């Protein structure tokens, strides 16, 4: 089954003066999908969201919803719910009046408004707060009200602009869980802007990684994390060791590379390259294995531990291999090592990935 894309960006650009914020960008989003736009600030992700909401006009290109061009539709006719980082609740209206606001604009009958407001307040677990003013609620509660106000009119798409950015860690995790639950239960299409990679990894069906107004890579969280295609994605998502190596030979995904000191390693590569091309090897800390001897280790190399830090659920070790410093994440069950210990490290070929610098 080939799914017809629900939202489509076609060669969309946005230029502010001499600054190109979004650059000929293509992106499709399916109905019911949770897509995160992830990237550092200034990478164009929020601008893209604002164009989708209708607050900004694209300089070039088209935005389509359900197959029809949306460019000239004013925001109040787009039927898209927007959740802002600062909640943007109306301070002079009570919680119930805030939530009723979109329904009143749509001419919904009074009795139905009351009923729908109550239903959505239960959905976001805020019953009995309906008469309060936003200023009387905590940050988390306010964001739930903002969410309820968006959900109550059953929008085509829910756009979230760093909605959890102002919350502390525990609340943030709770809200992440709640938003995911609502997405699943209601079948919402959500476009979620964030600069927090762990949030994007936890919540999304797909992640689009933004850099300089372009999408560097788009894919499932696992794709993005395990198979970064570019230097930027590899560094931006999670922690990784980048080791400069030379491409030696290979076919399709499996290949071998040579380190500075001439050691050959078996790794994977998304592309086939000429021999001798200088590339980087991305190796996640948790994929480094440790042993007292080379035995039982793939791609084994002698190494020396320079530091070990206890981090609760794991140990973090700084290791030196042939003058290159690596970070490894080790299980707590391993026998204890002290700084200065001579050991061997290794990794599986499918866990080390060649990327172009």
């Amino acid at each position: 089954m080939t799914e017809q894309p629900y939202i489509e960006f076609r060669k969309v650009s946005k230029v502010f003066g001499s600054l190109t914020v979004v650059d000929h960008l293509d992106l499709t989003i399916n109905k019911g999908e949770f897509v995160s736009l992830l990237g550092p600030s200034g990478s164009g992700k929020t601008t893209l969201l604002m164009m989708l909401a209708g607050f900004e006009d694209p300089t070039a290109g088209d935005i389509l919803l359900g197959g029809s061009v949306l460019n000239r539709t004013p925001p109040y006719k787009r039927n898209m719910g927007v959740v802002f980082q600062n909640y943007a609740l109306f301070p002079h209206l009570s919680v119930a009046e805030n939530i009723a606001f979109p329904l009143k604009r749509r001419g919904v009958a009074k009795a139905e408004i009351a009923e729908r407001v109550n239903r959505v307040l239960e959905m976001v677990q805020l019953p009995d707060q309906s008469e309060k003013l936003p200023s009387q609620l905590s940050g988390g509660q306010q964001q739930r009200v903002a969410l309820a106000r968006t959900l109550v009119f059953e929008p085509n798409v829910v756009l979230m602009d760093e909605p959890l950015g102002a919350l502390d860690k525990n609340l943030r995790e709770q809200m992440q869980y709640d938003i995911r639950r609502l997405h699943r239960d209601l079948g919402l299409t959500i476009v979620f802007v964030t600069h927090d990679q762990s949030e994007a990894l936890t919540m999304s069906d797909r992640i689009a990684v933004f850099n300089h107004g372009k999408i560097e890579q788009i894919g499932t969280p696992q794709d993005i994390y395990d198979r970064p295609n570019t230097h930027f994605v590899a560094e931006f998502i999670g922690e990784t060791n980048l080791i400069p190596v030379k491409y030696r030979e290979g076919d399709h995904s499996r290949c071998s590379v040579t380190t500075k000191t001439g050691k050959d390693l078996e790794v994977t590569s998304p592309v086939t390259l000429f021999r001798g091309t200088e590339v980087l090897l991305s190796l996640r800390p948790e994929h480094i294995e440790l042993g007292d001897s080379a035995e039982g280790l793939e791609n084994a190399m002698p190494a020396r531990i320079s530091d070990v830090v206890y981090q609760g659920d794991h140990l973090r070790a700084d290791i030196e291999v042939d003058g290159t410093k690596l970070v490894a994440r080790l299980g707590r069950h391993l026998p204890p090592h002290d700084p200065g210990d001579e050991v061997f490290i290794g990794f599986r070929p499918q866990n080390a990935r060649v990327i172009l610098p």
Partner: protein
Amino acid sequence: MTARLGPHLKASALVLPLVLFLALFFVWPIIAMLKQSVSDPVVHNTLSQTSAIAAQWNGKAPVPAALQDALVADIRATTDRQEMGAVVRRLNSAKSGFRTLMRKTRRAIRKTDGPINLGEVDKRWNEVAWWHTIAQASSPYTDRYLLAALDYGRDKHNQIVALPEDASANRTILARTFVISLSVMLSCLAIGLPFAMVIASTSGWLRNVLLAAVLLPLWTSLLVRTTAWFIILQNNGLINSALQALGITDQPIPLIFERTGVIIAMTHVLLPFMVLPIYSVLLSMPGNLMQAASSLGAHPIVAFLKVMLPLSARGIASGSLLVFMSSIGYYITPALIGGPSDQMISSVIAFYATESANWGMAGALGLVLLSITLLLYVVYGRLSAEKKGVA
């Protein structure tokens, strides 16, 4: 003990200049004004014997001889010319003619030490009306100024009656003062609210330029601004020449010496007091509330009415109050640009204070103005408190 008192003393010393300033330039003038408007001590103090006898006199003719003798004795006893001058002014202000009458009488009294028949000095002393005026002035306190400020007076039976319409128009002028102030407030609101919104929505140099445009009037003297408006509004001034050159009108539109001109000029002068409070309220509002409203399906006009307007209400209220209160006291602008039917109460107060030196009347009018203004302020306070309660 001293150690604990020390910081308190120091703290009070810090606010002392403020307290002194308030007492000296705010509380004291108001008390002085209050006192001035009801006290009437000159005749009581200077013509003390006359006052004592007049207090017992029933006001019916004939005038007791003792009263005449007392007056002569009092005039003889008063050597301070300023004191006697005050008495004369007080009496002449109640009844025209006292000035020449008293001058003549004093001259006659100065000439001799013996008894004097006042009726022979001037026929007017035979009329009981002149003595009534003295009798009415002999109490140290009076309500005549306050009554006169509201177009009332006392007749010869000491009953409160309305003054004839052509003798006093303070109520008309007071009402007009409030009507003009209200019009200025509304036109400031009509221009100031959108302007404040425009400023709040801009940023950088454009915002600075717009703010400077509002503040500029505050940096030039009121007289200069008013004179500039005079030049612009006159029959062959900028506006009328432009209108005629464009063929919109054949005849100059009367703007100068008219209410329209007064309101235009006052609006310009007072606009900053409307724009700045609204602007500061708008600044404190999250910038994306209008976006939020439109994403929730509100047409821009609905979003303005349901979100922007109620939220700027606080700024609108304080701006309106500032403009209204300031316009109540306006004097120069209506005097230069308005016609006679645009003069406000301040010009009447100024007339009594600087022209006729009738401080009692000036104080009474000031007091009436102050009371009405305070009353309006209380009403405003009630209304805004109720609104808060509802929200």
